[in-house]
């Protein structure tokens, strides 16, 4: 069950939130707030009550207990673009507001969460289960129309399609990442087609231009600094590198790719 309340302009929002939580047996409570000061007060209360919460802009999402899903689908074993197509088909038959439970493998986790978000749906929870799979709960929503407003670019989406076969572009991938970080832009790397070779364990260590550090060191430094590196599931399977990826690199697919490509605050850089 999902409850939504608005605490905007309330001096003590925690009092109302506490009352609502006490009368809620399970599900999710969505709280619309004024901003930081209300979020701070609510956070303290939620922490005291021992519930999990997430802040998304001025909204707070509190997980109170088990949520009953309207439908359930298992996509374990399916590879890109299978999971998103299977889930999309089920979602199409569901009504707005209904909840779908998805059981997915690690390979499809990012694609599903990113892809479903870009379709306008709300991810209620995403948890790893004991068997290594993921349980994702989503609430079907109507896709909101984006308004034609100007936005500040604060992310770059670096796409490498050539791999270690083109050392200059391979170096550029990580150097642009560093420059972006210095410019306070959040970089995300996506490796596809021949670019998937960069994700193969030890492959980047074979590239060392006399004027630059080892490419492998650059890759690991990027990962250590928190940069997300995705490798296309299909491209890595095509090359047989999907089972031997460098630690920290995640498998993703078309939904993740399009999610980043359609972010209004991000610019793609094709290499």
């Amino acid at each position, binding site marked *: 069950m999902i409850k939504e309340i608005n605490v905007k302009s309330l001096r003590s929002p925690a009092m109302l939130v506490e009352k609502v939580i006490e009368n809620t047996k399970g599900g999710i409570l969505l709280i619309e707030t004024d901003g930081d000061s209300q979020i701070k007060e609510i956070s303290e209360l939620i922490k005291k009550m021992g519930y999990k919460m997430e802040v998304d802009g001025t909204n707070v999402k509190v997980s109170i207990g088990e949520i009953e899903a309207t439908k359930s689908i298992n996509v374990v074993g399916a590879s890109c673009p299978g999971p998103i197509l299977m889930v999309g088909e089920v979602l199409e038959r569901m009504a707005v507001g209904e909840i779908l439970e998805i059981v997915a493998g690690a390979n499809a986790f990012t694609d599903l969460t990113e892809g479903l978000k870009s379709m306008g749906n709300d991810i209620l929870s995403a948890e790893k289960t004991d068997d290594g799979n993921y349980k994702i709960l989503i609430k079907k929503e109507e896709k909101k129309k984006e308004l034609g407003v100007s936005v500040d670019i604060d992310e770059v989406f670096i796409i490498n399609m*050539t791999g270690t076969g*083109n*050392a200059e572009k*391979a170096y550029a991938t990580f150097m642009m990442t560093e420059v972006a970080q210095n410019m306070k832009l959040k970089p995300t790397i996506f490796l596809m087609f*021949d670019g998937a070779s960069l994700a193969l364990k030890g492959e980047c260590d074979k590239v060392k231009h006399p004027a630059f550090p080892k490419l492998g060191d650059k890759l690991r430094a990027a990962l250590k600094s928190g940069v997300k590196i995705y490798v296309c599931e299909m491209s890595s399977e095509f090359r*047989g590198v999907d089972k031997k990826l460098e630690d920290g690199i995640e498998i993703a697919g078309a939904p993740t790719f399009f999610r980043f490509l359609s972010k209004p605050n991000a610019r793609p850089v094709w290499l």
Partner: protein
Amino acid sequence: MSNEIMLVSLALIFGSMLSGFATFRMSGMRLMPHFIALILAFILTIGTFLTSNTIVFYLAILFQILAPITVCGTICNIIKTQYQTTGIYSSHLALMGMMIVLAIGNLLM
């Protein structure tokens, strides 16, 4: 020794060196055994024409065979993981393939 075949081999080696420099630049200027074998094959093949020495001739043949063999490790990996880029390497690969056939032919004739 067949002077005609050796001359064609020299032309191939020279062409291989030029196309090899392009791939050398592409792959990040890594000094590979293949690169060294190719340059030695070039020097020894020229040496064969200049000296008519049998040892130099056999050494030239040896390096003409070694050069294509030493490229296998690198090229197999490229073909496996980066086959969309192999177009760039194809001229070099073609010359390497021809070089080994000519070297064996030179040895037999």
